[in-house]
């Protein structure tokens, strides 16, 4: 079972937080801080595993990958394979890359909703549901279409940005 997926930039700012257990915001913030505290102290050429039991309690492991300015982190328990989770991060990043064409931190900052669509396509309630990025993208695009269709019903966009983009 996957407990949490986090994307944190190298400044320690969260870019995506997903906790599959129910936690209070204070707890989430605390966990995020301790994870970042551990990650930023690690050199680049070391292994991608971090002892997580002191942060997330017994039977928890953490793998992360460092891409440019972002850390991608998955926290999970003993029913997942460590290397498979590293692959999963790879799948996630690849999918992002395909969706945004050369994904950068800015894409992740500004596409909050789409980011969740992608992640929910991969992980469902803490279980890995889909590992093929083509399948994930197909679903994400359908969802985007659906959203666009439902939004176009309201002809006049009410938000400032929507107004400007016209």
């Amino acid at each position, binding site marked *: *079972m996957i407990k949490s997926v986090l994307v944190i930039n190298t400044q320690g*700012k*969260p*870019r*995506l*937080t*997903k906790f*599959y257990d*129910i936690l209070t*915001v*204070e707890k*989430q*913030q605390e966990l995020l801080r301790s994870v970042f505290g551990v990650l930023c102290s*690690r*050199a680049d*050429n*070391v*292994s*991608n*595993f*971090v*002892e997580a039991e002191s942060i997330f309690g017994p039977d928890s492991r953490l793998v992360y990958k460092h891409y440019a300015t972002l850390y991608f982190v998955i926290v999970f328990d*003993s*029913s997942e*394979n*460590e*290397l*498979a989770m*590293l*692959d999963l991060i790879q799948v996630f990043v690849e999918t992002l890359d395909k969706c945004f064409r050369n994904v950068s931190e800015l894409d992740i*900052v*500004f596409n*909050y*909703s789409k980011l*969740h669509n992608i992640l*929910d396509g991969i992980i*469902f*309630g*803490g*279980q*890995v*549901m*889909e*590992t093929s990025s083509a399948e994930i993208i197909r*679903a994400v695009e*359908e*969802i985007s279409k*659906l*959203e666009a*269709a*439902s*939004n176009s*019903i*309201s002809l006049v966009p*009410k*938000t*400032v*940005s*929507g*107004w400007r983009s016209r």
Partner: protein
Amino acid sequence: MASPSLMDTLFQRGLDDIIKGVRHQQSSTECIFISRVIEEIRREIKSTDLQTKSTALQKLTYLNSIHFIDMSWASFHAIECISSPTFSHKKIGYLAISQSFSESTPVILLISNQLRKDLKSGNEFEVSLALDCLSRIGTVDLCRDLASEVFILMSSSKVFIRKKAIGVVLKLFEKYPDAVRVCFKKLVESLEGSDSPIVSAVVGVFCELSAKDPRSYLPLAPEFYRILVDSKNNWVLIKVLKIFVKLAPLEPRLAKRLVEPICDHMRKTGAKSLVFECIRTVVTSFTEYESAMKLAAAKIREFLMEDDPNLKYLGLHAISIMAPKHLWAVLENKDVVIQSLSDEDPNIKLESLRLVMAMASESNLMETCRVLVNYALKSDPDFCNEILGSILSTCCQNVYEVIIDFDWYVSLLGEMSRIPNCKKGEEIENQLIDIGMRVKDVRPELVRIARDLLIDPALLGNPFLHRLLSAAAWVCGEYVEFSRNPVELMEALLQPRTSLLPSSIRTVYMQSAFKILIFCIHSYFLQKEDMTSEVSDLSSKRECSESSDLATGKALVQSDQDEGFNPRESNQSYEYPSVVDTGDGQSSTPTFMEKKSLMHESIVNLLNLMELVLSPLSGSLDVEIQERACNVLGFMELVQQEFSNPLIRKEANLDREEVIVSRVVEWVHDGFTEELGPVSVTAQDRVPIPDELVLKENLTDLEAICGGVELPAPGSFSLTSPYYGESAVFSVSNLQAEEDSEPSTESTSLLTEHRKRHELYYLPSEKNKIPANDYPPANDPSSSINTNDATEDLVKLADQSLVSKRKPNHAKPRPVVVKLEEGEAAPVVSKKPELKDDLLSGAIHDILLGNEVKAASSQGNPSDKSSSKRKGKAKHVDLLDSKENLAVGEQPNHENPSSRRSKHRGDGKQKSKKSKGKKNGDGREDDGEKESQKIRDHHGRHKSRQRADAPINVVPQTPDIPDYLL
């Protein structure tokens, strides 16, 4: 934002505007900006326009997940959004709900209907949203209410929906075990095929389920085996292996069949993740299959040779799983392991440290520890302490099993405490005291080490070492007779810098100083007795050392007078070197007793020193310090009369006084020399409770029970009587045994004195002890191998057993202690989760095995449990039930084999009955008693009907599961 501007009311800011806005803020103004946005959101979210509302909610959800802003207040708005017909609103609402709802969210019950509606929607993405939400926040109520909808979706034609429905089953089973009756069969059917995404999802679910209760899924082993052989999907294979790791210990025959396909995968696959999972499976579950282990070891070797630190780490990790049973795997890779100790990756370093310690044995321990301690000196503080910790824990395993040379080990402990980063003071403290009590022969060395620690003023500044110093102080006080120079010890214990210590440790220092004082005075009296018979003839050297002592004493007195009122200031003029010199000067003498005689003056000096240091402390604010200071001062007053000025006193008076003082000193000394030894934690339990003693009764009844008998009787009876009885038996048997095997000779050296005093401290241990444990392991090696003279050791052994009859009991209880503690703690811990698991596993047993007895009992269980939790929500329950029955009525349409129709209908009915029982499992237990009583009666009828139903439901299912294992 006093009043909203025109811009704000006309145009709402979207999520992108907020993100940009936050980005433009400095970190100092960010908070203000966000709180303004929140204000805005609070206003917008009340809007009746769902577009405005959902945009506001989306902004809030974003702030919640990225800036950790509380959004629990918006829960009702989220529900409004999911009820919108527009997909984008729904989506925003569902995201908000799965992010912010918990079991305690009051409005959570309101989403039940909307979820049901969306689960039935024709739009697969709406269904997916609802399923996702249920899998995140599913409560007992939600899961019960929606179980039948999820069941229908499990047969959906769309793979996208079906796999998610299967994923939700996990939550369903966890929260509402009775769902098993409905969904389990479908779940097992979904295992067919081997590579579809559906199988992947089902295997994932079974992996989670079997982690909690593997036994229930044993009958499915053939299915999993088929997947293991057929599947080409690494994700599926990994999960199947995870399941088999859980199942293998339960069914020994499984291993034989599994080893081959697993090895096959290991050889053929190119995926490292699968290889590692195979290795892990083999080394944890199939350790007795030599060829598989060899193959795994070879694969591990490949991992270790890789440059990738991840593989290297996992390789080392796999070896450490093997290490306890297959040490050869570690030894084969010794080179890599040692090399990895200096790896830059902390994970790899830690793993290799563990492996190095696993390789440690009696023969190489000293070398290993020497290397590691040297390495610790060079490492960063964290790893340094890891090294120290693992040395300490390895060495003390099984009561210091691996240690042969205790003198070496004690000096190693001393060395370790001087490592600047050492934070293991507490652990070292325990071991110093433990070894002191268990291993007699090491005491002189121990005292020497403790002295070195005590006189080192630098250690006092490190708070992590305070505990260690308290052990050193205790050792010095307790075993002062082995000290070469008690005066020096006394000075160390009373040095001004001790004010840096916490009061609890300071009291240990004071008590130890008191012990030393008693020892000095006592030996002075002994000496005096000798001297009265012969003319004293002091050698020039002795005079010399005495005078130097005297000088030091005076210097101390002076410096203390200066510092007396401000002990916190560290005293630079404190004359340590001179003291140390005196000690070194006498280093050739074996013990203090033999060489150095205590002069009258030095006792007086000691007394003066103590008085100087302790008198200010008699006004200390700390009760314990004050108490001890007063005690010691009181005693000194008594003694001082003797020593104050003997020349002036009259002869007769002096004699009488001296007799009194010397007797007092004698008593106190006897009190202190009473040896403390390790006492089993379970010692108290071994005292048989007399039949008459009723511990749990109210004490007011005591008088009635005892009648005329005086009260102390039961107490003294329970403690002393059985104790004496048993000890007598014990000592006799031990005595005989020892006399048979070993010659009894006259006692050796100084230890005799120590051994006289093994009286009243130990409760006799049980007689049915394993004979192999009869001698304390810690004592054994040290006395038989440690010293050069083997015969002398034999003599000591014999002597020990003669003089200290109770000795065999001392260390023995240790292993028993561990067991007992575990035995007591385990049931308490495991009690809670069992209940829930029982429900689930019971239900699964019913389905899989069709065991009638179990079916009846497990059905009895949940209803019993829930009936005790019944609350007054009966109306609501009925409402939901009727709906549920409707839903159940639809079920058969989605099922292919018509023969099962009746059965499922039965299930449905049963479920609805159950649901009443389970209704209140959400833990609101403080409702009215009357109501719950009513429902319990009502429920009783259900229960009886359920029992009648059970066999009919369950029996026909039995043949569906091939059962080749049983």
